[in-house]
């Protein structure tokens, strides 16, 4: 059993009671809600005659269903409009702060909470969305929950949960030029498997992790869930504090100093005990691309799609399913695979540094003929920053569409979707069958810079070649 880790400390601090069924009641410091998973929870609350216990620890935004071309109300999709109207009235009735469209802070829930300084070290954070793990980048214990747990958190600011084990993933070395946080996390998932993290919280540590910016750390923690880990976190340090200082909801003045002292005290002890430890080397990682239908089915840009005989027995049947669905042949290179759609955005890679990295590749270039490429900033604030740096112009000039913020084609609950068997180069996090809105649509996950490179050449491309040209 783990001890002395940040996870243990934060868990112990938030444990309220032991419940009859044997699980723990865990206090939730910050509850984030959005339009898709909250309506039934509010309805259930009403059924039970209960109120929201801590409206001021609950924050809402709208992201999944918003259109990215025309956000005027009412939305053209009546179902989407109804979902937003429901969220608005629930927030109004329960005194919950909602960052709606045009507020300056609307955006993907996992982009805006850090941006606002709501996400802080040492908190427990829950949201009815599996990518809540993103917030662990700050040294918070953050995990996605189901609708009945959303109801429970609304009603009691707590939920019933069993403690997770802790695995430390220690990453030595440094990422090479043209290799990004996305490549690192795809590599980790490839190494440990999509079910490898089940029952675990992942602590990401080591020099390669410490060298990452906060936005890169968020990309890493975001995809913990794709590796099966309900949450992932990074011990807070100066990089964390620097990011937080001055943000809207960050502590100020005297309490800032008290805060940083407390945050430091939460870090995993030098002699902390982990349930498991894994060692990796960042310097060995190349730009990574998925070829299949799970985020674990990825290879380096220089590799060939694996043949069944070089896979573990247990991975073979899903690989067969992957070849068939993707229409890709084992033993052939992924490089050069033509793409139809290029999507830059999502809670994994829709932040300003992601857009900067992609713009660097797109600058002065043209999107390949026949390719539809679009950029969806993760939030209104990201959009604003990008415009201030004229990234929108760079993208537009290169032939990308510049859209309004939202989840967009990450899961295609809005009008942005693949059609038929189209294949996308996507900076999002899931390449499941049908994920991007067409039941036969295909997704290749990669870093935003790699997506930009694919947009320019019209095929899966090693971004390092374009980077060298850009220099």
């Amino acid at each position, binding site marked *: 059993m783990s001890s002395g880790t940040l996870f243990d400390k934060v868990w112990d601090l*938030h444990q309220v009671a032991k419940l009859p069924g044997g699980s723990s*009641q865990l206090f939730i410091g910050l509850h984030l809600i959005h339009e898709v998973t909250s309506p039934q929870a509010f309805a259930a609350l009403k059924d039970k005659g209960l109120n929201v216990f801590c409206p001021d620890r609950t924050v809402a935004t709208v992201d999944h269903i918003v259109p990215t071309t025309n956000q005027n109300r009412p939305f053209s999709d009546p179902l989407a409009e109804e979902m937003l109207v429901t969220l608005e009235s629930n927030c109004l009735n329960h005194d919950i702060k909602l960052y709606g469209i045009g507020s300056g802070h609307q955006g993907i829930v996992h982009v805006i909470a850090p941006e606002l300084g709501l996400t802080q070290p040492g908190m427990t954070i829950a949201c009815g969305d599996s990518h809540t793990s993103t917030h662990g980048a700050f040294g918070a214990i953050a995990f996605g929950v189901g609708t009945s747990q959303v109801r429970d958190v609304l009603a*009691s600011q707590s939920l019933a949960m069993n403690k997770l084990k802790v695995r430390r993933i220690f990453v030595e070395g440094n990422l090479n030029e043209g290799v990004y946080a996305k490549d690192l996390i795809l590599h980790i998932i490839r190494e440990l498997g999509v079910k490898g993290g089940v029952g675990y919280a992942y602590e990401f540590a080591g020099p390669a992790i410490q060298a990452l910016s906060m936005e890169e750390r968020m990309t890493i923690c975001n995809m913990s869930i794709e590796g099966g880990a309900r949450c992932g976190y990074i011990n807070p340090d100066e990089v964390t504090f620097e990011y937080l200082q001055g943000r809207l909801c960050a502590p100020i003045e005297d309490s800032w100093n008290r805060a940083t002292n407390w945050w430091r005290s939460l870090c995993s002890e030098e002699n902390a005990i982990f349930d498991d430890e894994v060692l990796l080397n960042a310097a060995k990682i190349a730009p990574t691309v998925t070829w299949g239908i799970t985020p674990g089915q990825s290879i380096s840009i220089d590799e060939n799609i694996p043949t069944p005989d070089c896979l573990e027995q247990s991975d073979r049947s899903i690989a067969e399913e992957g070849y068939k669905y993707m229409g890709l042949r084992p033993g052939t290179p992924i490089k050069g695979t033509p793409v139809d759609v290029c999507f830059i955005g999502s809670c994994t890679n829709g932040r300003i540094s992601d857009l900067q990295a992609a713009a660097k590749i797109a600058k002065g270039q043209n999107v390949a003929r026949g390719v539809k490429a679009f950029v969806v900033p993760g939030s209104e604030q990201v959009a604003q920053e990008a415009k201030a740096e004229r990234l929108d112009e760079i993208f537009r000039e290169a032939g990308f569409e510049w859209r309004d913020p939202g989840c967009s084609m990450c899961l295609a609950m809005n009008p942005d979707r693949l059609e038929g068997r189209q294949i996308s180069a996507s900076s999002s996090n899931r390449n499941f069958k049908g994920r991007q809105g067409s039941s036969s649509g295909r997704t290749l996950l990669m870093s935003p810079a790699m997506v930009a490179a694919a947009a320019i050449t019209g095929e899966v491309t090693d971004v390092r070649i374009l980077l060298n040209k850009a220099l």
Partner: protein
Amino acid sequence: MDSNSSFPKGKIQNIRGRCLILSGDDIDTDRIIPARFLKCVSFENLGEQVFADDRKELNGDHPFDQKINKGASILIVNQNFGCGSSREHAPQALMRWGIRAIIGQSFAEIFYGNCLALGIPCGTMSEHKIATLETIISENPMEEWKLDLNQETLNNHKTSLGLNYQPGALEMLRTGRWDATYQLTSNSDKLTQKLKNLPYLNQFNN
């Protein structure tokens, strides 16, 4: 369809009602409530949508459409009922149609837990007993039954059949402690204590 007031509440010891048979193994949550009904803002209409595709296919002949089953509240199923996704919409849909208890050969684990969270007991019987039960019900579908959780039996005026429950679940149902929300909200003193003591909720003074 039942009104909200009759949804399970408190101690669950006896459930009275007619039985309805839904035959077949491995009935998954996609069949119970097809995915397209997940894009909704409340669980309210799920009662009408339960088994939507299966019912459409059978055009009025599905057990959930047959007149004789109207108002039945004890669902009899076979093996591995409720397998598939973890969607809570599945037990919600059954509950909103009027189901208050399910008896079958076996249940998918997540589905079992989701039912428990709604106060719907899932009891198991051997294949042989289920078959016997199905015969009795088919012969007299209008008959009232009593599910007795204290005795762990299902009874009508002349038959009594034993069934099994997971001890923890049974205890939670009988004592009325199956409702996680209730458990969590009943610790409000301790929750208030957390609100007072957590550093980040108190300008980091603690």
